[in-house]
């Protein structure tokens, strides 16, 4: 089984990120990290590949930088990566991102395409479905459990009130939640091997697209303003000295809950 996993390098969420004052776009440092959310999709891919003597290719769009995040993903065990990195892509919205990812995936002839349900920094939550539509694939979305059935995939799909068991034949796209699997940690050997794995870096033109189809120009939406939201006024803080529960009782009384 050949599996393509859509992964993203993002600015380290532990450091506050900054917006370009003019374009309101996130400023991306050279050394971005792997979106933690993607580790679940990678783990699902590795398990499917291990059970079928298959292979795992990472597909990513965004500035390559030092490739730190991609190497993290390769260190988990993915075989190779395709990183579409082109200055023209800056400012691409979800649909443009999906078109670029779909163009990169089309060249791979994958049986399974895996994505996260939403990215940590963009969280539009629609890129996987857009990719599925562009590639005319069925999409098993919001998977909290994934298994191969022989000629297809069966998942447990998270719903608002429980879950559904859903099945589709290959080729198929799966979007996985962070509860789907326990991602493995890279081994020392994995980290060493990752350094020499192939990372192809096609440009937009290499994918048969033109610069005006991507980036801000190709996107049908534009951020016009970022402004502060009305702030909540600060409350009171009490340090528990054994009696702090009484402060809660008082607050509940004041709110007329008891």
């Amino acid at each position, binding site marked *: 089984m050949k599996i393509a996993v859509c992964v993203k390098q993002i600015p380290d969420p532990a450091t506050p990120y900054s917006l370009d004052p003019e374009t309101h776009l996130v400023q991306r440092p050279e050394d971005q990290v792997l979106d933690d959310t993607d580790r679940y999709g990678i783990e699902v891919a590795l398990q499917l590949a291990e059970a079928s003597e298959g292979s795992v290719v990472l597909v990513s769009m965004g500035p390559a930088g030092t490739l730190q995040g991609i190497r993290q993903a390769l260190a988990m065990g993915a075989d190779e990566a395709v990183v579409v990195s082109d200055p023209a892509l800056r400012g691409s919205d*979800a649909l443009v991102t999906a078109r670029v990812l779909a163009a990169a995936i089309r060249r791979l002839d994958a049986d399974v395409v895996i994505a996260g349900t939403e990215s940590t920094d963009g*969280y539009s939550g629609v890129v996987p479905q857009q990719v599925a539509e*562009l590639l005319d694939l069925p999409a098993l979305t919001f998977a909290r459990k994934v298994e191969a059935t022989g000629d297809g995939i069966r998942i447990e799909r998270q719903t608002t009130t429980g879950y559904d068991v859903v099945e589709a034949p290959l080729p198929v796209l799966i979007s996985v939640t962070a509860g789907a699997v326990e991602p493995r940690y890279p081994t020392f050997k994995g980290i060493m091997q990752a350094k020499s794995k192939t990372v192809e870096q096609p440009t937009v033109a290499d994918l048969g697209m033109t610069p005006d189809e991507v980036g801000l120009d190709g996107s049908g939406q*534009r951020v016009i303003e970022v402004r502060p*939201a009305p702030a909540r006024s600060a409350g009171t803080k009490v340090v*528990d000295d054994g009696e702090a529960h009484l402060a809660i009782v008082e607050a509940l009384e004041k709110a007329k809950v008891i």
Partner: protein
Amino acid sequence: MKTLVFAEGTPTGPSASSLELLAKARELGDPSVFFAGEGSDAIWAALGAHGATTVHHLETADSLPAASAAASMAALIEAEAPELVLFGPNPTDRDTAGRLSARLGVPVISNAVDIDASKTPITVTNEILGGTKLVDTEFTAGSPHLVVVRPKSFIATEVGGEAPTVTAAPATEDGPAMSARVIERHEEASAGPKLTEADVIVSGGRGMGAPENFEIIERLAGRLGAAVGATRAVVDAGWVPYSMQVGQTGKTVKPNVYIACGISGAMQHLVGMKDSSVIIAVNKDEEAPIFGVADLGVVGDVHNVLPKLLEALGE
């Protein structure tokens, strides 16, 4: 302005989001609804009562609806030319919105908390950084404008409308994208009031330490007539079902009182509960971000504070 609202059925009626979106759509003109899945007279009546005048109904049987819904909506949009198409936050809403966007080649703006249709072009507002900043985005492409709206952004209101006209939505051709099938459906029922409707919510996070410690959250909720909520950390760990998750990828709640126990207050949790009237937090780390939104913050150990609280409340 012609607006189309996406809806599906739930065991208790139309999706809550569809009724909220109808409130907004009504403000802009005669809203129609695209309904995917099994309908009923009760569902049509509820949609009508909330202002829908027409319902385009697509039967989806056991197929996962998004692919055929997007194809059918695309045909409908070509015929009716709505300017605005609104989706809720539910999985099938999002799946359909993404597919429709790709099919029509038009953008979709997600996580909207407000829509200003009086502006040209239409402008959509999002919250970022845990709701501390608002972002205004305008559509630069032509209509239809697709928007995925966060829960509780608009208030569902009955206006006592008649039962709507229900017509069959455009039929679709079968293709590979439509081959996903639903084999089984499972409801994970939880006791007590519904999380999204509860007046009081007691929520637990990883700081509760272990799944069995959630029992005290449940007892506290029982005593207060509250619903139980949770963070994604404990849902992913399998302690409680996803239906209890509060936050960006879970439910958005606005209760009178929200009690956060052992919850750090990550941005993605805050966006789901920060609009609660009163927030009470118990966390042993005085630097925890949850204290930034709490009206009452107790710096303490949940294993000490909660049993005493339960006792004081006389369970």
